[in-house]
């Protein structure tokens, strides 16, 4: 177990370092920086430009900038936003809480809706129920999330004369207001993810139900409920857990779209506005955090494998 943990941690550290370096170099290879953004179409005063470059440390060699950033990061300091002046760790954590809330709520709804639908479609393969559920899956998977979000927004306004409040309110401050704010983005994402779940579970279930052990169980006279839920469903848990991990990471990645669409101050928007404004410390810090989250999720999934199937324990 210790060896397993050590190997995973070492590979996670290497992945984090390489992705940080990639983000660092990519950001600097994009033309334009914060200085040109601040000066805009004002005059071409070279003194002002050089002064600002010096202020932000952009006049130093790239390797020296990376070494400084890495050194500070290793000591837990991700720096400060060049625009806002606030600590990047604080900004990232505040934004993460928003994104995490949406991700968890989406995951819960999508699981509660998608898994039963998938199981039902798998059991009723070839029936009208299966066809209806597959139609739902097709709609959810093919409709872009921004379109679903926009339709929900316009639909809610037209039918209910209601639109969500604009300023994000944490659930700890005002739960009702918080639900008002996140309900449409969560529903938008949930439709897509529930369809993805349902599609995945149906296909896996159909494959599983064709296996010999299922036939043997039915031939033995076991009740269908026992065959479906005690044997078949249990056997699809491992791919399902992997799928949940992928979905979680996908929600984090897709947060940019949904957060932009509903003006939610989450990680996606933080990264997007950081890239647009060339706020390097924010982009580097936030993306490093996302990478760490992805690594943690994968790590937890690996541990869950062992819990579900003792043969896979390290």
């Amino acid at each position, binding site marked *: 177990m210790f060896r397993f943990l050590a190997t995973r941690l070492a590979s996670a550290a290497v992945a984090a370092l390489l992705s940080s370096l990639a983000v660092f170099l990519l950001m600097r290879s*994009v*033309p*334009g*920086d914060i*200085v*040109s*953004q*601040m*000066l*805009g*179409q*004002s*005059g*071409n*005063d070279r*003194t*002002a*430009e050089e*002064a*600002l470059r010096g*202020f932000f440390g952009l006049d130093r060699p790239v390797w020296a900038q990376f070494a400084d950033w890495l050194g500070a990061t290793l000591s837990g300091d991700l720096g*400060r*936003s060049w*625009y*806002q*002046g*606030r600590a990047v760790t604080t900004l990232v954590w505040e934004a993460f809480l928003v994104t995490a809330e949406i991700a968890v709520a989406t995951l819960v709804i999508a699981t509660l809706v998608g898994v039963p639908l998938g199981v039902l479609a798998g059991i009723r393969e070839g029936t009208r129920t299966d066809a209806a559920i597959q139609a739902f899956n097709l709609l959810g998977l093919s409709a872009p999330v921004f379109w679903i979000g*926009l339709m929900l*927004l*316009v639909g809610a*306004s037209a039918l209910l*004369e*209601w*639109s969500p*409040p*604009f*300023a*994000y309110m944490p659930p700890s401050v005002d739960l009702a207001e918080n639900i008002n704010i996140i309900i449409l983005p969560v529903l938008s994402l949930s439709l897509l993810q529930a369809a993805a779940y349902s599609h995945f579970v149906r296909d896996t279930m159909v494959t599983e139900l064709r296996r010999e052990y299922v036939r043997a169980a039915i031939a033995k006279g076991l009740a269908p409920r026992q065959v479906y839920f005690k044997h078949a469903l249990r056997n699809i848990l491992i791919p399902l857990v992997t799928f949940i991990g992928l979905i979680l990471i996908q929600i984090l990645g897709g947060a940019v779209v949904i957060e*932009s*669409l*509903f*003006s*939610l*101050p989450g990680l996606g*928007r*933080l990264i997007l*506005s950081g890239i*647009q*404004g*060339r*706020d390097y410390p924010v982009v580097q810090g936030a993306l490093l955090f996302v990478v760490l989250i992805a690594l943690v999720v994968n790590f937890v999934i690996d541990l869950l494998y062992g819990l579900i199937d003792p043969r896979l324990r390290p």
Partner: protein
Amino acid sequence: MPGSRLRLIAGAFAALVAAGPVLADDSLVYGKSDPAAKNGGKITVGSLIEPPSLDPFLQGADARIRVSGLMYQGLFFEDQTGVPRALLAKSFEVSPDAKTYTFKLREGVRFHTGQSMSSADVKYSYDWMRDSRNGSPGAGDLSSVTEIATPDATTVVFKLARPNAALPMTLTNKYGAVVPKDYFAAKDAGTKFNEVSVGTGPYKLKLFRPNSVLVLERNKDYWQKGLPHIDEVTFATMPNSAAIVVALQNRRIDLALFSRPQDTEQLKNVPGVEVKRWPSLNQKTLDLDVKYGHLKDIRVRQAIALAIDKEAVMKASIAGYGTVIGTIVIGMQDSWGVPLDQLANQKVDLDRAKKLLADAGLADGFDIDLTTIIGYDWMDAGAVTVAEQLKRIGIRVHIKKIELGVWIRNFRAREMGFTFNDWGTTPDPSLLYYRHFRAAPQGADFRNWNNEKVSALLDAGQEEPDPVKRKAIYAEFQKILADDPVSIMMFSADLITGQRDRLKNYDQHATGWYFGLIKAWLAN
């Protein structure tokens, strides 16, 4: 009535160069007052853009300027008629050689910190801004200032190396502001602007949560008694026009300034919502880099201008919600512009355009990239229309869409190529033209024009105190610009606001900034 604004400006400047001081007329600052105005209430303004930061000295983004004019003030207010109205200055005098400006300051002005404002604060603030080492985008506009003196607590004297008739308009609210002396001594002063406001304006910063909201609260100690009327203003960052429309319909917001006028079509029949059009100081242009490919040849530049049907581009881009222009923004046309029929290359003439191309050895046309900016929706339809129009004379346009940060980098590096541009100004011709077209190092000359005659005219226009002579100088400049179109100024888009009917007396300033909120009020 054409010419009336010039007479107004002429009157102001005649007084300016005369012996007597020019006195402030408070009733004209920030627009007209409403005798029926009531105090109190809170409003929400929906906005598609938000300030990256609230530093009035270093942050040049229009989104910052829109709101910071409510918290921070300069010596003057940029009245959209073209007259700089005294704001923190009470009166001012100009020496006979027009190289010394003496400002008397208002008394009883307090910063949001509670400190009283004095001449030392004014000197400190403008000295900090004009020092290029501090990196303010406004530094270049004050390059003619050699010294700022403070003979007493309420007098500030600006000494200039050369006359600068645009100085009062430069000391308005676009860049910089008057802040307490030694404010920048603190290392984190620049970013502290995002937490606490330290200006003298009618609103104080209450909360700035990026990617979400900016909340301003009424400054109870504001020096213009009785203003502002509204207690609290929240600027909500909205994701798109559809969300703004929905929020206006559902009373979530009270006011929004639309970037695409056609989006307001859906609001026309909504009860309780009024859509208004306002003139602007903004223009949509096609800019031509004189060092870029075939654009090096003046005949090619002229041919392009002759093939562009500005009216058609405007209809495609903004559904016709604007005015076709010649060489100046529509808000300054009456005061400083030349009638379009007196400018060259304004009417479509395809035969002449083709002949010019043939004379340039390009009878078979040529290929060229046209750059547009991601997020500037009007450019997409505009670019397709321009491409179709130029195809008629054999120019094959390839539309290239780039991100704003990349575009700004190219523009500043004078590598813009052939591009759409979207720019605005405060209402003075020197501030509009100088940095764009004056040869380096005094100007930025983004289009690599390097035109000596133009540079001489722009220097003369900046220095000339007589508005009538000044107008003649800028008219000559505009005729040169029309004849050699390094910038084809196509149209000014109207500013379009959607507002709930409970918001009263809101006048949208032509810059697109929110000065109108200071004298607006809320009905029950």
